[in-house]
């Protein structure tokens, strides 16, 4: 039996601002992780990753990050990805400033 696939989101940083962004089901890049497409199939994840990586004039450093389903959409499972949804802990800068 193959190992169970951990759900993923496609994420990277916006080219101009460097801000964290996630790929949505309708092919947009969103600044809110909850709007991202939660990918539950490995083959589909690879297709979406390639799609994300094919847009170098919009997004930089695209990769697949582990995620889980939450009440309002995908949520991070690792603290690094959690920090990327908010910003630094020493100042109210980054996404948490506009939230």
């Amino acid at each position, binding site marked *: 039996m193959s190992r169970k696939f951990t759900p993923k989101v496609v994420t990277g940083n916006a080219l*101009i601002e460097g*801000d964290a962004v996630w790929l949505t089901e309708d092919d947009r890049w969103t600044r809110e992780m909850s709007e991202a497409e939660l990918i539950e199939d490995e083959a589909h994840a690879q297709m979406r990753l390639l799609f994300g990586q094919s847009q170098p004039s919009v997004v930089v450093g695209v990769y697949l990050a582990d995620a889980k389903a939450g009440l309002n959409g995908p949520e991070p499972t690792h603290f690094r990805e959690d*920090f990327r949804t908010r910003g630094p802990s020493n100042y109210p*800068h980054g996404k948490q400033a506009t939230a």
Partner: protein
Amino acid sequence: MYSYSEFDEAFVRERVSQFRAQVERRIDGSLTEDEFKPLRLMNGLYLQLHAYMLRVAIPYGTLAPHQMRQLAMIAERWDKGYGHFTTRQNIQFNWPKLKDVPDILDALADVEMHAIQTSGNTIRNVTADHFAGAAADEIADPRPVAELLRQWSTDHPEFQFLPRKFKIAITGSPNDRAVTKAHDIGLRMVRNEAGEEGFEVIVGGGLGRTPMIGKVIREFLPREDLLPYVEAIVSVWNLLGRRDNKFKARIKITVHEHGIEEIRRLVEDRFTEIRPGFSGVDQEVLAGLEAAFARPSLPERSLGGFESAYTNDPVFRAWSDTNVAEHAVPGYGIVTISLKAHGKTPGDASADQMRLMADLAEELGHSEIRISHEQNVILPHVHKSDLPRVHAALKEAGLGTANVGLASDIIACPGMDYCALATARSIPIAQEIAERVDELKIEHEVGHLKIKISGCINACGHHHVGHIGILGLDRAGVENYQITLGGDGTESASIGERAGPGFSADQIVPAIERLILAYLDLRESDSETFIQSYRRLGPAPFKAALYPETAEKERADAA
């Protein structure tokens, strides 16, 4: 200080205009990220967790007031109103936008600054003793030599594609404040038996994944041989260095694998070969640099104002005792401005604070400013009678904390609050430890103690040479903090030893508190510092304080 020549000015401007065109081509899609990345890194531009980060060089940590004001302007106009001074004596801006970076670089060039060779596999900013030119224990100001090395290494055609980055540190004092033994090359000014000035050359030091104390490759190098000798070291390593494995590419591994004797033989051979090519032009340049870095004239003045404030104002007295070091000229002091207010981010200064420090340097400090690798700001030449005014102004701006060299004067890298390489956060741990020792009101009693925190194995926070080092790791998806004990970054350098299992983010501050309190119980006298107690007693009693349950169990088992 040094002023740009026409050549420097033209070179820096040309690099800015090249980078401006590269950014335009990246944004319009003509360059891919793979093509652009090495170009942006050559100009100090990183992509971090939440934004780009621009690392600006502050050569050997020396800044003029108008440069500090320009950094403040950049912070306000293109960033979020602050800058972060680093353990490499540089400044980092955490929030620039890609399209603005060429304008920022132009604004830096306006004040003879740049971000060249602050990244990539090149010779990086040469760091120096932050008390250079002022220290009472100094043989000579190391900055003219540091500037000579900067000119030699900038855009050096042989050394633009080194196996890995390369860092040189220099000190002119026997008391090593520049951590020379933890650099690829460390240079310590010494005198030989004939009384001539030269350098002890140390090679192969470094922290990171494989921490090493540097080894002496030449006990006495005459001053005029410095450039050819350093060039010989870098060129030997350039050929031998392990380009097959990034983790084994630094010169510390090359020295470790080949042995210092073999490296010395190769370097001396190479030195003999290239020495005749150095015609003495470098020594003429150096003589000019020495004039440029001459100490300002420091007239003798009355100490009246200082003595009455020292007697009557206990807050001033505490600050003066802690933050002001002995100057070579009687009546003057070296002021260290702490960027470590309890609970604040180590090394951060707001634009307003930068401007205030620039004003104070200009009015009362002979227009000189230094940045220390310990992430503080130095006013190297302040007359003692001006100290009460300096202190009052600093206090009002949140810069009057009297903690230099104490438990809350913590070095911390940006960690996972910013850095894409980090495995855990550093800043909140530093903030919590500083707040806790402030609550306990014990740091003046504890005395000299260096706590250093890195958020990953690359050790930007120098944790290996902290008396207490803290390394943040990711253990099964949770932040975990490992403690090392007994490190030392000075002339008696040593690498700290791991104390035992790591602590969670909740447990690390109480663990540090137990350690500090245990030291207070263990020390022989008030004058025995933490590191002295540790060296006298060894790790056992400190480990017992860190892991009381294990210690308890061992006692029970022994009984």
